[in-house]
């Protein structure tokens, strides 16, 4: 077990006042067999009016409404989690065997699948490495060329992308081979940005895997949310009224703490 302290803050500055602002956030670590929450706090500004709930996948969501004029929005989440082994025993929800909006299997996904060969004796874990190796060849890490709306198939066409795209491609390929897979959003140890990886299902449990780094998601990964693809897990979503420019700043720090 490793104990981590995390501190996450996102700050949006609006160039003009906005109003009638609804938000929906998923920035709180998920409790599971592989992760125990020791302490967790979050706040929203301005106003700190928020309510908590669970979405259909069991992710904690924070939602709220700011009616009055405001020119910034801030969400911060911090706490301490204990991370155990990379395994979550759970009954399979068959939903994760079927393609979703951003992981549909179109021509580019089929093409990469056709280059992958498994032998009968290989376990799911071994297959995952083969798939991930193949994806490392097909995709180069490059920020700024894809967006949150880019599908697995489009990312493959471009040949470049970020963690979200690696995860979508990996999920699409896994599902194509009948391996249940789901999208995971979370924090990685160190300073910087949030990260996305996947979980695949084998026998009776889910295992984390990070296709961007081509390795199992262990250790140093704190999971926030999972779902079929990015859209189920988006960390912050909001709609508001007003004509404005926005500037987004994200601060994240995850560090091990000694007990």
């Amino acid at each position, binding site marked *: 077990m490793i104990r981590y302290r995390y501190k996450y803050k996102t700050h949006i500055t609006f160039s003009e006042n906005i109003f009638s602002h609804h938000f929906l956030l998923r920035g709180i670590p998920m409790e599971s067999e592989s992760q125990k929450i020791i302490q967790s706090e979050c706040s929203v500004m301005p106003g700190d009016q928020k*309510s908590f709930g669970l*979405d*259909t996948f069991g992710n904690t969501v924070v939602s*709220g409404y700011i009616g009055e004029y405001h020119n910034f929005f801030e969400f911060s989440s911090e706490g301490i989690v204990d991370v155990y082994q990379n395994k979550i025993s759970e009954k399979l929800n068959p939903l994760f065997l*079927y393609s979703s909006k951003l992981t549909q299997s179109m021509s580019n996904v089929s093409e990469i699948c056709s280059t992958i060969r498994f032998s009968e004796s290989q376990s799911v874990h071994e297959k995952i490495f083969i798939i991930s190796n193949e994806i490392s060849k097909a995709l180069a890490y490059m920020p700024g060329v894809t967006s949150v709306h880019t599908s697995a198939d489009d990312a493959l066409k471009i040949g470049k992308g970020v963690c979200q795209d690696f995860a979508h491609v990996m999920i699409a390929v896994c599902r194509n081979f009948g391996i249940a897979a789901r999208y995971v959003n979370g924090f990685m140890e160190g300073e910087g940005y949030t990260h996305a990886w996947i979980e695949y299902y084998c026998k009776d449990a889910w295992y984390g895997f990070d296709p961007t780094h081509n390795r199992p998601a262990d250790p140093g990964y704190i999971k926030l949310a999972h779902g*079929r693809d990015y859209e189920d897990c988006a960390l912050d979503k909001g*709609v508001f009224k007003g004509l404005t420019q926005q500037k987004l700043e994200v601060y994240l720090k995850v560090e091990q703490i000694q007990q």
Partner: protein
Amino acid sequence: MYSSLVKQRDTVNRWMERFGVRFGIYKNGVFNEQIFPFDPIPRIISNSDWKDLEAGLIQRVNALNKFLCDIYNEKKIVKAGIIPEEFIYSSKGYLAQCEGITPPKCIFSHISGIDLVQSKDGTWYVLEDNLRIPSGASYPMIARDITRKVSPGTFKENEIFDNRNYASLIRKAMDYVNVDDGLEVILTPGRYNSAYFEHSYLAEKAGVLLAYADDLIVEDDIVYYKGLFDKKDRVGAIYRRISDDYLDPLAFEPDSLLGVPNLMRAYAKGNVAIMNALGNGAADDKGLYYFVPKMIEFYLGEKAILKNAPTYLPYFENDKKFVLKNLEKLVIKDVAEAGGYGVMFGRDMDAQRLADVKYLIETEPRRWIAQEVIDFVDLEIMEGEEKVYRKSDLRAFVVSEEETHVWKSGLTRYTRNPASFVVNSSQGGGFKDTWIMKK
């Protein structure tokens, strides 16, 4: 029995025009409103015929409601091997976001529009279940209102069930599911919607508010109606006329301007009733239609009273073989389409087209269903001074609250094109009154 109506048909149509009884259509990106023509000759359904229909419709809708409750929770029907899991998870109308949510009073389809045709031997066949936002009830409502004024004698002479209770049926359904005695609203996407006339008319008749997305806000996972001077009133039931995809930009289509952000949060917590519930598309998918008689047996332990049109699912190997062999005799439908689109008749296809369609069926079997063409009954309509016969269907409206009721009326639509078998208001055509007889 209805000759005075035939004589006064122009008067009736003029009144309708005055009331703005219109139907909006988008064609090539341009919004056009057109009059929905009214034919004065009613469709007459005898009392004994109606009794069978009514029992069949109640049974069907009850089973569909149980099915929706089941697939968003335990999925007993999948576990029992009656419906392949794939049909649920890859249905376009299935919403994973609704897993585990039980709507107030466990009703999913509060207002169901069941489309039927009657074959020449008198048998009724269900063509389609519409469990999302079935529209069209306002047309027979207003038509009856006008014909009663224009020719009161007709309704004295004939023993016809009064149909002016539709709005009160809707109101009762809203009252029944209302959470914490909140306001009741009809949520409309606005005047550029094909059924805007209906939204405003129903709101007026049912005595509920007509709300636009802007009028509703979600705070602390509770829905409020924002009145004048920012007064906020809690909303308990929303009869929404906006499709699932556009209902909440934070849960579904992010670019939607028609929806209410975080409405899904309030709904998931049981703080508001939404009519019809979200995710109903999983039950009125054309592929799922095939299984409705099986649902009736599974959930109610009864034989289906109403028949489905004979349907084949290319998903099943035997059905696929049959479909490929008999394509010329069948009608092929795309399961994801509605409004009369994606419907192809085998007999109208040339050799090339037949080969193309066969290829589509082989490569994407889950996407298609094939049905036998039912030779359904022609109804008389007035074309100028002449009586002609045209194909027609009937949309029956079923309202579910504590009990399930069938509205003793319905929307009879007919095609204006004598060669067409596709009866849908989006494809042109008109409508008639439907008389349910007391004897």
